[in-house]
């Protein structure tokens, strides 16, 4: 009895420490210490669990803890920041796998021991394996798309939404049946298999540019799976931590879809970017102004006020360090440099911030969309590095464009714009960008990293 009380107290302490840890993330200066507190909470919860009465042997546990540490250490220490989106998707898969396996083991053990599974417990177990399994395969698909061994283009076919709806309905039907008749093992395993399929089909039609929403949503599902585990085994720390994760992922997906001016339904079932139809304005008859590295360097060197607009292209080219180098040269000449961060630039929430922080850009200079937009008109140069849709003025003025209504960075309002871009191919959404054809826009073609290196070399010679 005293033992149980002590265990519950460690869980309570862990829950509080988790909340303090997440709260610390509201302030960059306090965040590290807060996360150490959360880690301490995790340690407490683990130690508390290890002394539980139900645990009678430690061999499997020790092997698992050692294996997990061996796999986790390199995943934590050596994965480069540029690989962060796929790294996050990958670990959602691990978390969800743990939850669904615990659910399956709980279910089979209960049946083997002839325990009665109440409908409340079956509901919890059902949601646990449902959320768990679909998050496993969904995250794997997201991981594949981000690591580019699965096509980043949306995969669509006729009757896709109808087929998915049927799959979904059958799975829910099985869950309801199981709640009524928990002893039917076949139904249980068919439901698990269908949940795995749902994960695959859910992410298949979603394009790379929509990944920030998908990753957040999977984050939320992984949390809900953990919370359902808590309901199934009657453990409050699991419920609390799962609820925190679920809320966090849910909130992030709302923020991300708002930043794209699209609803959840539209992202999940809209298959954005699958068809490259010329709904927007055509680029025919328009000319682009190409600029030489020398001219661009000259303009940047004498600019007083420069706004950098990084996009996914910067991440692909891994050009964040070169961006920083060019920024330093501008600052050395007395200019001011800031960075305009669109919430959905890149492939996950906060992608650009992490990359630029890695390149030693002080976070005070990383400015969010709402704050930086009024300042574009006073900027001498907006340097667009591999960003496309997030600076497309069509979102403001072309009601026919698929991205119409999406909040964008007003780079076009700067005195002049220099765009670093590989070629004139349209961006991920397959939409023409009229920013590139404006009279005050100059294009500097080439790989962003190479272009920036050449720019920096040229600026040093001035």
């Amino acid at each position, binding site marked *: 009895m005293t033992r149980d009380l002590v265990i519950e107290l460690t869980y309570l302490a862990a829950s509080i420490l988790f909340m303090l840890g997440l709260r610390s993330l509201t302030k960059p200066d306090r965040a590290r210490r807060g996360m150490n507190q959360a880690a301490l909470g995790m340690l407490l919860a683990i130690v508390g669990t290890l002394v539980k009465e139900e645990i009678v042997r430690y061999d499997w546990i020790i092997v698992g803890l050692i294996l997990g540490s061996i796999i986790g250490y390199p995943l934590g220490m050596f994965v480069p920041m540029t690989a962060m989106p796929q790294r996050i998707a990958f670990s959602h898969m691990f978390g969800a796998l743990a939850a669904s396996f615990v659910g399956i083991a709980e279910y089979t053990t209960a049946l083997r021991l002839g325990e009665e599974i109440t409908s409340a417990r079956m509901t919890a177990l059902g949601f646990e394996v449902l959320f768990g399994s679909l998050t496993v395969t969904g995250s794997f698909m997201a991981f594949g798309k981000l690591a580019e061994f699965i096509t980043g283009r949306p995969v669509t076919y006729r009757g896709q939404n109808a087929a998915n709806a049927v799959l979904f309905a059958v799975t829910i039907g099985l869950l309801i049946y199981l709640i009524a008749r928990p002893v039917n093992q076949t139904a249980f395993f068919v439901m698990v298999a269908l949940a795995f399929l749902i994960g695959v089909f859910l992410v298949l039609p979603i394009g790379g540019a929509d990944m920030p929403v998908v990753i957040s949503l999977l984050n939320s599902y992984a949390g809900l799976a953990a919370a359902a585990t808590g309901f199934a085994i009657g453990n409050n720390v699991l419920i609390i931590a799962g609820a925190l994760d679920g809320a966090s992922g849910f909130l992030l997906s709302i923020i991300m879809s708002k930043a794209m001016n699209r609803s959840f339904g539209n992202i999940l079932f809209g298959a954005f970017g699958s068809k490259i139809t010329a709904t927007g304005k055509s680029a025919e008859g328009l000319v682009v102004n190409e600029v030489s590295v020398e001219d661009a360097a000259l303009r940047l060197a004498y600019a007083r006020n420069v706004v950098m607009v990084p996009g996914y292209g910067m991440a692909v080219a891994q050009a964040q360090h070169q961006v920083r180098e060019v920024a330093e040269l501008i600052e050395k000449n007395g200019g001011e440099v800031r960075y305009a961060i669109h919430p959905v630039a890149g492939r996950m929430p906060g992608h650009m911030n992490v990359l630029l922080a890695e390149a*030693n850009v002080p976070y005070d200079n990383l400015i969010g969309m709402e704050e930086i937009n009024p300042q574009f008109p006073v900027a001498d140069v907006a340097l667009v590095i591999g960003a496309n849709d997030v600076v497309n003025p069509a979102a403001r003025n072309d009601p026919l464009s698929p991205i119409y209504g999406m909040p964008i960075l007003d780079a076009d309002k700067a005195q002049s714009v220099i765009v670093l871009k590989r070629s004139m191919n349209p961006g991920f959404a397959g939409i023409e960008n009229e920013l590139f054809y404006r009279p005050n826009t100059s294009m500097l073609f080439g790989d962003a990293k190479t272009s920036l290196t050449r720019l920096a070399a040229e600026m040093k010679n001035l």
Partner: protein
Amino acid sequence: MTDIIQVYVFVLAAFVGYQVITRVPPLLHTPLMSATNAISGISLVGSLVVAGSDHGFLASVLGLIAVTCAMTNVVGGFLITDRMLKMFKHQPERPAEKN
């Protein structure tokens, strides 16, 4: 009765979580994701019991895999979050608002 209390706990925790996380600036959204990822390793609490209860080979193997996966998230998640947060630095000497 305990079921209802669990629902209470869930709803209140989700509410508090929502309130806290609303105030996390976009700057730290990636560390937030990796932090919640590390915290989702709390499935360990369930996994450990499954792996250590000696309820037959199948349960033990499932438990072993679950412990491994959850521990991977705990170790990897907290390490990478710290690595990321370490990179976020203030402007050195020069004050942020200059003009």
